[in-house]
């Protein structure tokens, strides 16, 4: 298998975190790619849910928006958006929420709202959408986004949705009973929250990536686990499935 990109490793590695029995609330973009790859490889029976109300959807190509027609056509059930947020998300039926972010801090707190001051922003981003309650109602949260100093920041400009807050016990003090972020997959490495500090630390580096590369792309003083391993390279099956999926997607969106 030649020419494997870090982006491909990221998606494959993120996909591997999902189990066949998971019920996954899927964010658009990178999470959607990883979730559908999981479904097309090792987790064929995974239940994918998009906040547009589509439950158990099996799109043949990646949706451009969160409400593309194919999500509805291939779903087990389509429900209204109030029902989605009340019975399915708040009802505690989702095992994994899969999110991305504009800014992320070491505790897995996320900003997708503004860069700069909220009332006088430098850049007004789209906002949190479903994230504030996805972050607290799903059994656990996986995050995937590309490594960069702009994204991996020491201090968030805005606190769109909570990860581990300011560290151990913060979620509990807010009455939150779910785990929060348990895994972060970037295009350079995999990070897990340290059990004592709740700070994300590097547990595996993608093939060919150095510690220095990751440190350089991270805006906070980075920790590494005691034993940092190399991320297992994508298999031919995973890579084929991903490339086919992206090829189909490109063709479909060009034709539309």
């Amino acid at each position, binding site marked *: 298998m030649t020419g494997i990109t870090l982006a491909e490793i990221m998606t494959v590695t993120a996909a591997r975190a999902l189990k066949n029995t998971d019920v996954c609330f899927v964010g*658009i973009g990178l999470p959607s790619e990883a979730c559908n790859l999981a479904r097309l490889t090792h987790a064929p029976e995974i239940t994918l849910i998009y*906040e*547009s*109300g*589509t439950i158990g959807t099996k799109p043949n190509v990646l*949706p*451009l*928006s*969160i*409400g*593309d*027609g194919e*999500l*509805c056509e291939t779903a087990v059930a*389509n429900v*209204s*958006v*109030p029902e*989605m*947020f*009340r019975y399915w*998300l*708040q009802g505690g039926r989702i095992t994994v929420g899969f999110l991305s972010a504009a800014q992320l801090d070491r505790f897995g707190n996320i900003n997708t*709202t503004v860069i700069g001051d*909220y*009332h006088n*922003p*430098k*850049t*007004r*981003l*789209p*906002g*949190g*959408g*479903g*994230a*504030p*309650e996805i*972050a*607290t*109602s799903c059994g656990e949260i996986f995050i995937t986004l590309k490594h960069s100093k702009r994204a991996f920041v020491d201090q968030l400009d*805005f*606190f*769109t*949705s*909570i990860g581990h*807050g300011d560290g151990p016990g*913060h*979620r509990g003090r*807010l*009455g*939150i009973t779910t785990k929060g972020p348990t895994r972060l997959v970037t295009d350079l490495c995999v990070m897990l929250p340290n059990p004592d500090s709740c700070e994300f630390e590097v547990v595996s580096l993608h093939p060919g990536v150095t510690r220095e590369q990751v440190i350089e792309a991270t805006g906070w003083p980075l920790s590494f686990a005691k034993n940092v391993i190399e991320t297992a390279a994508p298999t031919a099956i995973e890579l084929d499935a991903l490339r086919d999926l992206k090829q189909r997607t490109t063709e479909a*969106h060009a034709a*539309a």
Partner: protein
Amino acid sequence: MAKIMELATAIRENVNDGDLLVMEGFTHLIPHAAAHEVIRQGYKDLTLSRMTPDLIYDQLIGMGRVKKMIFSYAGNPGVGLLLRFRDAVENQWPRALEIEEHSHAAMANAYEAGAAGLPCAVFRGYRGAGLTEVNPNIKSIECPFTGEKLAAVPALNADVTIIHAQRANKNGDVLLEGIIGVQKEAVLGAKRAVVTVEEIVDDFGDISPNAVVLPSWTINAVVVIAGGAHPSYAHGYYSRDNGFYKDWDRISRDRDVFLEWMDENVVKSGPQAFEVHVKKGPAK
């Protein structure tokens, strides 16, 4: 009882300056043609509400018609940011825009409470979220049985809700299918409701007894506009025009390009311009 009428009449009879106007649609069935008529008729100082404001709200904002927007995700779905919205928030162009920002869960619950005739929605939300510090319309309430603190937001009740649906029957009952979003709640919670549809049929035929039907008497006006959701889509009629959503990023990036596009495609156009989009055939 819904009256079947022309778009211009339906908008004129139901929209006023300063209204809280809701044009909902979760990617699917967004009422583009009706929004363009609202722009053509020149209403001002509108408060817009929508979970996922996209192109039509960007257009209304860019044309200076909007005083305030209530929302939970203001992006161009699958493409990026909403550039006219950004320009209004960051640079107050063409005017300052007041915002009331919520999470999806809060807005979905607020529409639900509006349809249910309640003054507020109660849900488990906003824990650890920064919006609680910038939005005074997020409060809390205590469960009288468990003592759990729950979030509360005011119910959302529009002055007028405008939606697009697949079809109406001759009686003016309206059928929605597919991704239905919060449209039912937005209509039932509104003082007045206008529905544009792809077509009017004699009757709905052999539909599911549990199909989503809004009875005629919950609606003020029904208007036929084939293709009226374009570049959004109508399940069973035509697909989403992803290309246009990508184009919008370019069109909306520059104020002059935007104004020129609006003049040509909205101000000097009409609902009949939407028909062409149906000819692509039904969504597969």
